[in-house]
């Protein structure tokens, strides 16, 4: 591994804290991922990406910046990467998954704020995230009240925040709002990049992102098999790296893994014995290095077969139609695709329930673990409905409410094991 300290210093990172973070993440990765048995060969690519997540990838991003390309940081799957690519920009996810800088963050946020928001502040305030520091524009979006209000103070600490409004209802008016916001965002991108979005450049962007999503769907479908050819942890990792990596290289790597998995399925090779209890996770997104729940599940003799999360199928399902002859039509197609995302900030959100049921069926899941971050109102409120409806349909549900700390790991393990006993 090369020495990136100079690059990190130039980005204004706090080198001491950052070194400590890298060490913890590296150690966590070792314990959680490298200790798994029967991993597909293709996961080596992801091991490499993770070992260079603050290194080589940042260097690539810095090189891109040197060529005049703009880096756009995002916190939500509602921000269309297609538009960013259409101005030859680089899109990176900034969601953070570790309890870091929370004390500092609590100078801006009430204690009862979800861990995801707190760590977005914590990572910035502790100066440990090269993605935040290299972003030319950070896009905040008005989803839950927590994020919406938090961006008001985030703006003061990052300085380059752009807020995108989002609808809360799947109505005609809601769709019109989404379109207006995407048009505005496209203009903003044109303005900062000095590039015009053309039919050609947008089609290219759509193609790249469609390919990336299609590869993820392909990977997802291979997990229908029993024995399952890939662990839930590894699949989650792919879903997380999705937000950082060079999209074309990422797509090729995922497809290579899929080829390998197809072979495995033919040969009846899996990561866990055939007939192992199969769990679908549903709920809040899990950002790197938030692997707590999947690690507990897969170390309790069960296997995760799918993720109904934004770091999972909710974030990657559906492609954008690319038949159109004008930029406006293409943007309409983008709006059509994104408007289907069934995030809990929408009301009502019946489609999410239908999707969970459909996924349980397709992935042949024996039960659903609903993962809600403490203080996340949208998902916590919805979890009760999800539980009621699924249990009514004969699908066992376990509700887990947790945060980024490790204190409750023992208790969660007991609950997860009991749940597995229930569904086996």
């Amino acid at each position, binding site marked *: 591994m090369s020495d990136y300290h100079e690059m990190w210093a130039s980005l204004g990172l706090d080198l001491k804290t950052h070194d400590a973070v890298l060490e913890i993440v590296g150690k966590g990765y070792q314990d959680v991922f490298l200790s798994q048995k029967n991993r597909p060969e293709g996961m080596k690519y992801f091991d490499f990406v993770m070992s260079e997540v603050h290194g080589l990838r940042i260097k690539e991003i810095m090189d891109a910046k040197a060529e005049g390309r703009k880096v756009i940081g995002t916190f939500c799957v509602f921000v269309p990467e297609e538009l960013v690519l259409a101005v030859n920009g680089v899109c990176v996810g900034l969601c953070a998954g570790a309890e870091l800088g929370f004390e500092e963050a609590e100078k801006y946020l009430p204690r009862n704020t979800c861990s995801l928001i707190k760590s977005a502040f914590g990572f910035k305030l502790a100066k440990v995230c090269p993605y935040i520091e290299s972003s030319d524009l950070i896009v905040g979006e008005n989803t839950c009240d927590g994020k919406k209000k938090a961006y008001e103070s985030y703006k003061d600490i990052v300085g380059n925040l752009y807020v995108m409004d989002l609808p809360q209802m799947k109505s005609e008016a809601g769709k019109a709002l989404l379109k207006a916001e995407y048009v505005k965002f496209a203009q903003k991108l044109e303005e900062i990049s000095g590039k015009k979005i053309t039919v050609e450049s947008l089609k290219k962007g759509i193609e790249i992102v469609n390919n990336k999503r299609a590869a993820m769907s392909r990977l997802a479908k291979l997990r229908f098999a029993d024995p399952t050819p890939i662990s839930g942890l590894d699949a989650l990792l792919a879903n997380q790296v999705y937000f950082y990596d060079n999209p074309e290289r990422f797509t090729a790597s995922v497809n290579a893994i899929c080829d390998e998995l197809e072979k495995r399925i033919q040969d009846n090779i899996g990561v866990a014995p055939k007939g192992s209890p199969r769990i679908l996770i549903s709920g809040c997104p899990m950002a790197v290095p938030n692997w707590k729940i999947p690690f507990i599940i897969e170390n309790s003799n069960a296997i995760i077969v799918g993720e109904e999360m934004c770091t999972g199928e909710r974030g990657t399902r559906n492609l954008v139609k690319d038949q159109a002859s004008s930029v406006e039509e293409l943007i309409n197609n983008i709006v059509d695709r994104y408007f289907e995302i069934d995030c809990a900030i929408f009301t009502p959100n019946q489609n999410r329930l239908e999707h969970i049921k459909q996924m349980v069926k397709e992935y042949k899941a024996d039960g659903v673990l609903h993962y809600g971050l403490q203080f996340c109102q949208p998902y916590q409120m919805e979890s009760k409905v999800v539980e009621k409806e699924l249990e009514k349909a004969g699908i066992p549900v376990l509700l887990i409410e947790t945060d980024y700390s490790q204190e*409750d790991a*023992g208790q969660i393990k007991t609950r997860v094991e*009991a749940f597995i006993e*229930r569904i086996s």
Partner: protein
Amino acid sequence: MKSLGIDIGSRTIKVAVINNGNVTISRKSENSFNTLEVCKKLLEGLDYDAITSTGYGRHLFAEHYKCNTISEIKAFAVGAAHILPSCRTVLDIGGQDTKAIALDGKGNFTKFEMNDKCAAGTGRFLEIMAMTLRYTLEEFGNEALKSNTATNISSMCTVFAESEVVSMLAKGNDRQSVAKGIHQSVVNRTISLLNRVGINNDILFAGGVAYNKCIVNILEEQLNKKVFINDDPQIIGALGAAIYGTY
């Protein structure tokens, strides 16, 4: 076949041996910083063909003794169904956690809930409150039972409740009445947990807190139902593990 079950809780470790469905031996001991040492002592001189561990220390134990483990939930479900076949709801209040389990009458559990990560409403909470009121644990329940009134305690967080209790005493509130109020608040918390799994007859109350008469009294009063407590409410988990070992 002689099957041994060991339930390694945060405060107490319990052991039960069954032979042909009957409990032949039961033992318990306070847990210490050296869990395995306590386990070893407890197992001394015991004769068994199979061993199953449960409780929060189950994996640590299983690593050393190379045995099967089951979760506490399963262990309590199996143990409760053995003690009281008509049981449909199990309540267990132990040192660090409280569980409510719904049973289907065929030896399976259908739903369970546990308290979240704070100690409020658990045995530990009662212990701390007893200390704050300068009672022994035994006195605490008995004295509370004597009071006709219950001072309302609003905080459920152990830390806040402690300072609330201190300031109540400073304001001249009756000690017994404060004690009763604390018991009342634990029962309220317990009932909301029970409600999440559904409260169906018969109810078995397990765990060390089942020895506390005041809790039992208030619980029965509020539920307007009788709760069953066996001779040794702390043994249900170990018993369940032992029975599971015979499957």
